[in-house]
């Protein structure tokens, strides 16, 4: 299974603290102004500019990379945010102004981008990785996300996503605060995870070679 871009890319930059708060404001401003400006990016639809502020080459804290996810996955998440079914202050703020056509365009655009070719962080916790691998087998993660965890259809790529993001996502599925597509598969799977399982799974997936 391929799909990983050969294109070299800078490692993700982390933004935290006041910078993050400032960025949130910038994002919201970008969201409102992007829709009135006539300037157009070379390839990205105008409406994608607000997204790229956090999900572009450099990732804002807590913002996962979204390039190369399937169009259906991107669209599902935006619809969930817009409907308030998935909670995040920034994302709900961005999504509430999106039309159906905006969401379709964003899905198409981000799906057309290559998957970021990031090197996983060095694995300094081999035992945790092993526990995560066992948990992934037990909970059948690869059945939907693919043997190399690069995603299939609406089940997204989970390989080499930020560890903190993966842990948060699994925790949110477990508590039912993040909706699951595809027959509620994630709600079902995450419902039986322990805190230790989540920690191990997030680590294992984040450092996948």
């Amino acid at each position, binding site marked *: 299974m391929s799909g990983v871009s050969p294109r070299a890319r800078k490692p993700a930059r982390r933004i935290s603290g006041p910078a993050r708060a400032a960025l949130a404001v910038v994002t919201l401003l970008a969201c409102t102004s992007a829709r009135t400006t006539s300037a157009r990016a070379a390839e990205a639809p105008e409406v994608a500019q607000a997204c790229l502020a956090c999900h572009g080459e450099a990732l804002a804290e807590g913002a996962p990379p979204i390039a190369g996810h399937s169009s259906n996955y991107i669209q599902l998440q935006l619809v969930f945010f817009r409907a308030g079914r998935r909670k995040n202050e920034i994302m709900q703020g961005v999504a509430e102004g999106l039309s159906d056509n905006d969401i379709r365009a964003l899905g198409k655009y981000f799906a057309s981008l290559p998957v970021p070719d990031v090197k996983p962080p060095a694995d300094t916790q081999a035992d945790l990785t092993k526990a995560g691998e066992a948990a992934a087998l037990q909970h059948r993660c690869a*059945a939907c996300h693919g043997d190399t965890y690069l995603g299939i259809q609406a089940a997204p790529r989970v390989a080499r996503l930020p560890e903190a993001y993966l842990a948060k996502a699994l925790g949110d599925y477990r508590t039912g605060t993040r909706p*699951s597509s595809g027959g509620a598969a994630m709600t*079902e799977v995450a*419902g*039986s995870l322990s805190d230790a399982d989540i920690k191990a799974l997030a680590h294992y997936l984040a450092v996948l070679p």
Partner: protein
Amino acid sequence: MTASNGLRLRIARGTRGMAAALVAAGLLTGTAGAQALKQYDSSGKAFWKNPPPDWFLGDETSAQKGLAPPANPALPASDEELAENLKAVKLPPGFTISVYASGVPEARQMAFGDKGTLFVGSFGATNVYAIVDQGGKKVVKTILKGLNMPTGVAFRDGALYVVAIDKIFRYDNIEANLDKPPEPVVVYDDMPSYVAHGWKYLTFDKDGWVYVPLGPPFNIGNPPSSVSQVRRVDLKTGAAEIVALGVRNSVGGDIDPRTGRYWFTENARDWMSDDIPSDKLNMISKVVEHFGYPYCHQGDMPDPKFAQGRTCAEFTPPVAKLGAHVAPLGMKFYTGSSFPAEYKNNIFIAEHGSWNRHKYQGGRIERVIVDPDGKNAKMETFASGWLKGDRDYTGRPADILVAPDGALLVADDWAGAIYRIAYTK
């Protein structure tokens, strides 16, 4: 097949402990290092009432591993996408397909009102829609919300009937009140609340009784006594009779205009293989015929576990084997007059398409030419082109309706649209 799209079932959770235990149990039987197969014990009422969200995976095999239903698109297809999709649809010479209405999320059974309103049920969207013509443009109104899988709709004597799992509702004088539908009257509720395969289809006969299929709340097993059957119900009195037994998941049927008999489609069990057993087209020639489930599939294939000593010769075979995992849903006899004469009384079947198969098939409309007694069935594909590659849909036909002008309407619950197929020569 069966479970269809999205499967966003509103099922109470609370089976986590059980699910975890079963997953762990599955591990013990799996080979070392291999991913466990999903196994559920679906034989008891706890499962029927509160199945885990992924109940349809409960009989997973290594051969079919991971072949779960694909997640529905997030949004109904846009007009531009629909125009593009329909370019790929192949029809016999002289026929054309166009968009009748777009923006109809998870569209399922359709029924016309006397004044030309098209009523449409839905799967997990919980809605019933009314599509009306306003100055030549079709406008989609969501007239009912929050119903439990309201897949089946019918219209008679000014009233709209909606079936939502365990209740049939009647909305009187509906076409005069589309913007403020009346409170419904519950006209039949002697049905179990099991959601799995509990979504239904409604067909009135000439006496004004309605045919209702009731599916088993799992893939395969000895069904609860209240399901795996088709009933004929008088909605005026609540009188009901069982007309067919041994039926798995049926979500389509129609009255043969030649004989008054009820014909119906049936989805065969999953997790046997890519190519068996075949889905079916059945006909009821006398009351309480048994069609074989769970003992015998496709009329000639004993179930490896649930045959339980019964033989296929004991059961009514299908009129036609439609193919494995094609998922036949809505069907109608062609009773219009705008198609060429040879289409008269042919059956059109909306095939929803596979999920439990490595290379999907179905996702098209089949034409069946068959004698009134069920003999000499011939099948051909009438409309196809919604299936891309091995496992990608641009649309999934879910129901068929003959419009008053003789055109064929097709409900697509994947693209959230209604199409119109006309003969234009």
